[in-house]
């Protein structure tokens, strides 16, 4: 469970984004629609991945990306898994809000994808699932399927699950400076019951990810979990930065 295999073009990191596009995502967050905050953060994240993978003007395919948006249905935004160079050519998908929040269906799609992919990831970093939502599910309970996903593993470690929960007041105190914030730990007081559920469905932050986060300017506690309260656009962005913190070969 070292989570120390480097992402290279031969051993790329698989990152699966699961994005809630339910109706509530059009509500504002710091004066901006939540869906736009998410798209901005996603854009920054993909650009940062390209930044890490670019040598001259060549993008080395060190990341492989899948992207699901979900509401009443689940939408495979990239039509499967794409390498980061392909995503860079495609650009960031435009998201629009819909209605309900069938989180379980989205994770069932993720599970199917991982079942197909895992046998081919023997020497790759453990895959990561980054789930972004702004409210409780309206379909079936996603927890059992998320638990199954968290139990999947490759030699690098169990599949990592990260949750970004967009909400105005999850924590008792606002996070003034994300760069000095210690992150959500098992003992952090959370104001929302679903946030507690999401925390229990979030993987512990691997030490190697913590180091990469430190290189990006974040100072997370050793016992932080992979959950981010999206109370501000900066914290949402921090959550997406966490999703791409697989150690990467810098050659």
């Amino acid at each position, binding site marked *: 469970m070292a989570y120390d295999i480097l992402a290279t*073009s031969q051993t790329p990191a698989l990152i699966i984004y699961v994005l809630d596009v339910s109706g509530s995502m059009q509500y504002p967050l710091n004066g901006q629609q939540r869906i736009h905050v998410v798209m901005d953060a996603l854009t920054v994240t993909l650009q940062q991945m390209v930044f890490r993978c670019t040598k001259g*003007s060549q993008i080395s395919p060190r990341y492989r990306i899948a992207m699901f948006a979900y509401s009443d249905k689940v939408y495979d935004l990239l039509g499967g898994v794409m390498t980061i160079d392909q995503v860079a*050519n495609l*650009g960031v998908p435009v998201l629009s809000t819909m209605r309900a929040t069938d989180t379980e269906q989205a994770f069932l799609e993720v599970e199917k994808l991982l079942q197909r992919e895992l*046998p081919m990831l*023997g*020497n790759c970093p453990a895959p990561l699932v980054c789930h972004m939502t702004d409210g409780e599910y309206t379909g079936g309970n996603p927890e059992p399927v998320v638990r199954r*996903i968290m139990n999947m593993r490759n030699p690098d470690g169990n599949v990592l699950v990260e949750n970004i929960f967009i909400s105005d007041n999850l924590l008792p105190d606002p996070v003034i400076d994300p760069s000095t914030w210690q992150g959500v730990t098992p003992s952090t007081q959370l104001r929302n019951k679903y946030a507690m559920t999401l925390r229990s469905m979030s993987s512990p932050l691997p030490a190697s990810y913590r180091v990469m986060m430190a290189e990006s300017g974040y100072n997370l506690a050793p016992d932080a979990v992979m959950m981010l309260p999206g109370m501000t656009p900066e914290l949402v962005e921090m959550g997406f930065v966490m999703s791409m913190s697989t150690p990467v070969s810098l*050659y």
Partner: protein
Amino acid sequence: MPGFTFRYAFDRSADSQKAGAPGQDYLTVIAEGKRLAFVLCDGVSQSFYGDLAARILGGSLVDWLWAGDLPPERANFEQALEVFLDQLNLTAHAEVENFTLPADLAPMLRTVLDRKRSLGSETTFMAGCLDQAQGRVWLAWMGDSRLRIWRDMQERTDLLLGLDNFQTRERWSTHRGRIGTLHTVVLPADEITRLLTYSDGLARLDRRVGSRSPSPATLEQVISESQKLPASDDISLLEVWPGAAPRWSKNRPKPPARVHMKSKSGDGRLAVSWRSVPRASGYEVALISPSGWRIYPADETGWTCTLDQLPPGAESLAVRCWVEEEAGLWSREVSLNQFTVHRQEQSSSRSTAGLPAEPLRVQTPMEMEVPPAVTRRRSWRTVLLALGLAALVGVTMWLLARGISGRLHTGLENAILPPARLVTMDSKLTVVEDSVNQAKDGTVLPENVETVSPLDDEPNSGEWINRIRLWLRRHWPQDLQERQKRTY
């Protein structure tokens, strides 16, 4: 003994070769009589076209080292170099700002490159001037490339260059100048009987190179293997000896025999053993798959791994030994198909259930040796046929090699390296020299490790070595590649 002998190597990373893109290392050497100056740069790929900074700094710094009247005191040398590097920023900054991006870039990539441009192009460097007339050696460096020195077979790097003075974070930037500490030393020339510098793409040499220099054959092997590894990086290397180069034995360490694999039911582990090779100082195991190699260090006579550590599609395994600095030949490949199948079944069952691993489906203890006993009778005919074919191919290759060698000799008689030393047709270098009559527009050399010696006994070697400059370029112009095909 006057003069220097040196050899160099250069290769691009597997990614760069695949994309047809230039590498980001840069190596330049000037040698004349009792003086030699060199710069080895490793462009930072995270920066804006790291090869740009590498080329700018490498080209300018080697000229500065060569032309300058270098101060004999370290502090003065360092101060002068600081001034030079700071002044170089002014022109380098403008060159980066004026660099034209390819027109057909995706918008996201263009945005990223514009951001990188604002941060500048960066490179690490190892540089030096060895002057036997003045009896001094000046060395300067920033970054994590390697610069190693020996005196009389004893490595003196830590003692004279410092233990922690090769840091990844230290580099030179076109926009920010020196990032971190500039390291310099000035030593008496007789402190160094061998100098070796290489970029981190050859980090595998760190623990393999000791008191002796690895032979060209070992270097060739390590470089070509690097292409197959997941973390394949650009490679550059320069090794310098005052006086003559050592002589290397042509005998390679033999491959280990009787490579055995064993996996017991349920333990999920693969154990590999072999017969030890006399004088071997270490072993390595290569897991070979179509997508690349993994090479692991091994103990004297064995190596184990869990079955799920086998790379997907791993087809075979081979073992070799090291005898001091010399890499042995790889053993015959042993098929991994049986184990890979079990591993895939294991992964599939695990994934389908989404649960922790089930016990392996290997029912009984297995032991396999190549060739497998069950096929031995049938394989006699195959072996005889193969031997016959191998002999035929060998004779053909020998005849062809004689023909090629003769043509090489003809084609390179006026080039700057002794033709007798050219071994393969797999060139990685373009060499441009500026004071020899021939090959003004560059000569392609069919070799990626080459030794240059003014002391060589071979005819004509002393004439052309009078003053040469080697530019090891990362990307061949297409016309040179075509010309090489025509010429040879």
